[in-house]
């Protein structure tokens, strides 16, 4: 709406031209029939109750307490959990992921004597660095993706801490309208003298985890 003025003024004793009356009416009708804007509305006049749900923000959450085992998984990233959200307009998507995970020894693996000690000790809730040279390092990696694009990656968590927690957050701006997929991926590997290989002694299980997806439309 721009500055509005009364287009035609009718004075006493004047013969009224019908089209002038009609044009005066049209000026008002034009605004109300779909062209109202901020100038027509007082400041702070729109409160929560008249705004439809999800107008400005759409949130979707998912969580699980079922353990996700990384045993016998390849050393590439695999999907741990994901969710999709339908957004009818372009938006910014903010994602948060959190979880805790703990390392376990593999009871069925074939190990040499030193590694077997390490596994036995692990089952008895301790691990001595004497075994470190034999078993090498085992790592857990995580990444958070929005529509297939990485928005956050963690450092490689070593197995030194039996239970650990991870938090990732990221945002992808100007996501086009439609179905948006947010996924969390994890991988596990053993670093043996610079060579990445599958871990036969340890694996980790991802426990409590939650994924929050926030589509910010305006």
């Amino acid at each position: 709406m721009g500055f509005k003025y009364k287009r035609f003024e009718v004075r006493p004793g004047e013969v009224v031209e019908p089209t002038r009356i009609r044009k005066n009416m049209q000026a008002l009708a034009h605004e109300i029939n779909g062209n109202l804007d901020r100038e027509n509305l007082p400041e702070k006049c729109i409160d929560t109750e008249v705004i439809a749900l999800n107008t400005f923000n759409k949130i979707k959450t998912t969580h699980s307490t079922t353990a996700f085992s990384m045993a016998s998984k390849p050393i590439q990233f695999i999907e741990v959990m994901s969710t999709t959200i339908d957004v009818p307009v372009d938006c910014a998507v903010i994602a948060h992921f959190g979880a805790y995970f703990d390392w376990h020894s593999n009871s069925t693996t074939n190990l040499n004597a030193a590694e077997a000690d390490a596994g036995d000790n692990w089952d008895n809730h301790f691990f001595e660095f004497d075994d470190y040279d034999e078993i090498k390092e085992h790592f857990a990696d995580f990444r958070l993706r929005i529509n297939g694009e990485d928005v956050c990656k963690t450092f490689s968590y070593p197995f030194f801490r039996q239970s650990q927690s991870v938090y990732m957050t990221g945002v992808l701006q100007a996501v086009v309208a439609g179905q948006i997929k947010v996924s969390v991926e994890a991988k596990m590997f053993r670093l043996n003298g610079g060579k990445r290989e599958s871990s036969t002694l340890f694996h980790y299980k991802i426990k409590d985890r939650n994924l929050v997806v926030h589509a910010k439309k305006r």
Partner: protein
Amino acid sequence: MAFVTIPSINTGDEIKVENFNDFITSVNAVTSSINAENIRDEGIDRRNLATNSVQEIRVGSDLFKDSGDTFQVAGSTTSFVPINSTTTGLPIKVGVVNSKDDEFIMVNCSFSFTANNPKTFVETDNRGGQEVEFKLQYKDYVSGVVADIGGTKRAFNSFMSMHGNYHANLRYSCTIVAAFIPDSTTTGLHEIEVNLLGMDHYSNSNYPLGNCVVHDVTMFARVIKR
């Protein structure tokens, strides 16, 4: 949608009182039926929105930020308990936050903690080092519901043994972010408090420990309404 009807009046027509009355009637009806279709696309901006109409953040009770205080995880080795200030005794929490049905409450919580080995048990006791767990829980003062916020449990421990002696200390930071909608109430209203709870014990043992100290805490909650 409110729609204003313009009478058909052309040059040479007789102007009747009905022409005006019909128009006035349609204009009067605008106030009761006006909706989004009457507004031009992208026609409104933040000036038209009432304060806190989209989301609400109150810097007072909805924000918890310690001022150098420390908090002790103590009280139980088998169940989660509030984490209280070592000086004031007050727990780590935010709220009361007021919300309505279908409105999300988003909580961000970050903190650091240390759990030092008191050198009580050596590794041969078949116990791991300190194990510390945290989770977020909400309480609705309207419905009385107390419930864990799903998927927010976090755990830390160590099996590392320092050459046949004691387990390594724990020093970590943790961030938990969650969004949830409280269970519906008969009034549709909620008064929500969110607590950070903790549990502290030796791994593979319920032996009381209680030496985990939480510090550098920031926690805030906001209501995302629309």
